[in-house]
């Protein structure tokens, strides 16, 4: 177990830079999730830590060692792959023991370690089976077992749950979180699924186009997204984001609606972000703007309303209580929560 440090880590393929300098310090025992859309470079970054991709420039350290030029096996890491990459001709036991065997561990030690990992993952009944005789969830657990049995300095997981069905994914997610807390294993986890990211992580790295857009706790990422991309990517349904004009008295919304917001720092055109659940319906005569409700999705506890700001074509998603009585076609009066507004630059998307 150890800390992992990345310092201005970059990667280029044939002169084309795909990772543009990521710097991060992962504490010992911390669970960090790298999340982003496909092609954002998250897997590449993980594979650079693993030693499966060369580091073009910058520095990666695991523990107190700079590992840039070390082979994967010299880095003392373990990895879980998306398709598990279990050795098809070896039994579960042999799969888990293989790394230990290469490391030259004695037979009784190997057996003890495998037994320990198998017990932790409830794999004992399957130890003598081949991977093809296991279900998807069992294979996933074997892949976890193979990684944990080594007690590595860092555990790296590359979309480990994406081959499972939805129900199993939720189960395994809980199990992984639980295992990580019990073993206090420094963990780096890649996913494109924001729910996985939010529920698992101590801290998140939200990546887009080879850049770490934000490195922060899930709470921080949600409540104070650093860029417009992060704001739109994290949260479901996605944050409403549209362009407004700021002046001394408040905001000029699309459709020409003016909303008084005191004490705004921003001036001129900015991008306004509004979480669906932060939008409130106004029943008294406090300031509000009109939204025409186009459709409504009732989910039980919640209902999502989809409408447009009157006089414009800007769409707005609202999260309402399941008890709501509004209906399709209603003209809603909507207010802005002054303390829940997110402003982003129209130039670079950064939070203002």
């Amino acid at each position, binding site marked *: 177990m150890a800390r992992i440090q990345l310092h201005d880590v970059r990667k280029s393929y044939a002169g084309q830079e795909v990772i543009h300098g990521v710097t991060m310090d992962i504490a010992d025992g911390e669970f960090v999730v790298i999340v982003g859309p496909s092609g954002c470079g998250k897997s590449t970054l993980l594979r650079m830590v*693993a*030693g*499966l991709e060369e580091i073009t420039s910058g520095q990666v350290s695991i523990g107190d060692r700079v590992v840039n030029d070390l*082979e*994967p*096996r010299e880095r003392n*890491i*373990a*990895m879980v*792959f*998306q*398709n*598990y*990459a*279990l*050795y*098809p*001709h070896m039994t579960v036991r042999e799969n888990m023991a*293989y*790394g230990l065997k*290469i*490391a030259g561990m004695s037979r009784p030690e190997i057996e003890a370690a495998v037994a320990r990992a198998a017990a932790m993952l409830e794999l004992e009944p399957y130890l003598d089976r081949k991977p093809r005789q296991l279900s998807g969830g069992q294979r996933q657990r074997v892949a976890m077992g*193979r990684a944990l049995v080594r007690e590595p300095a860092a555990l790296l997981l590359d979309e480990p749950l994406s081959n499972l069905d939805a129900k199993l994914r939720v189960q395994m997610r809980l199990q992984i979180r639980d295992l990580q807390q019990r073993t206090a294993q420094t963990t780096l986890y890649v996913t494109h699924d924001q729910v996985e990211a939010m529920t698992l992580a101590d801290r998140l790295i939200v990546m887009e186009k080879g850049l770490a857009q934000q490195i922060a706790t899930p709470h921080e990422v949600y409540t104070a997204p650093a860029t417009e991309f992060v704001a739109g990517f994290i949260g479901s349904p996605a944050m409403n984001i549209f362009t407004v004009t700021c002046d001394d008295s408040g905001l000029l919304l699309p459709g020409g609606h003016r909303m008084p917001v005191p004490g705004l720092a921003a001036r001129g055109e900015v991008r306004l972000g509004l979480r669906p659940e932060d939008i409130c319906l106004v029943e008294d005569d406090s300031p509000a703007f009109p939204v025409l409700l186009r459709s409504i999705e009732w989910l039980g506890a919640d209902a999502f309303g989809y409408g447009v700001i009157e006089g414009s074509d800007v769409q707005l998603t609202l999260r309402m209580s399941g008890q709501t009585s509004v209906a399709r076609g209603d003209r809603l009066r909507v207010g802005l929560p002054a303390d829940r507004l997110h402003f982003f630059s129209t130039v670079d998307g950064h939070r203002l």
Partner: protein
Amino acid sequence: MAARGLARTMAHFWMILGVIIVAFPIYYVFIASTHSVQTILRPPLPLLPGPEAVANYTEAFTGGVGRIGGVSLWLLLGNTTIIALGIAIGKIVISMASAYAIVFFRFPFRMACFWLIFITLMLPVEVRIQPTYKVMVDLGLIDTYAGLILPLIASATATLLFRQFFMTIPDELLEAARVDGAGPWRFFKDILWPLSLTNVAAIFVIQFIYGWTQYLWPLLVTNSNEMNTIVIALKKMISFADADTPWNLVMVTSVLAILPPILVVVLMQRWFVKGLVETEK
């Protein structure tokens, strides 16, 4: 339904006819090997095994063949086995090694090496007989096992098959092995080799047959009868114009020249068919 039943019966009829055409010559040799010279020379030959089987085979193995060709049947079988095994194993070893290098490493001129090997598909021995023979003479390889085996073990086909198979190994498997601490040798020994066994078996069969049935090459690079393969020896034993040919012994030799490769093919049929059909894709 009746029409379908009839079609199936017809199909069986044609298949049986096909099998008779295909298998008859082989059966016929076997029958001939169990009859005396006199019976063989007085057609038509009976369709059932004759009484001379034990006598013919005993004579052939205890020097009968040696009296005709100057070399004992044991030596012929031994030579042919050494050559067929040498070619089959040699090909597997060197083509696996080169396919491993081409698929699992990056180095300058990698694709150039691949093409260099690939193009040899277009250079069968037959089109370069004379100059290859001269190389053999210059290297002193005439009448040696090395001379019989070495030129035939470089094979683009086997390299291509292994390359193709290696490319189907998922990247993650190699990555998992590297994370587990396996280097090139361990990865090969523990992961790749066990996964390649079916392919190895298929190539072994194909190349064993290839080696066993060689004709032109052994004809060229052997002068001494001691180095004869059974196929070449058989050719030398037969003279159709000569009434003295001991046909019963020739037939025994034919059976022994045909039988080992047939056994290998039939016993390893499952892998062989898979390998054969896959090689050529």
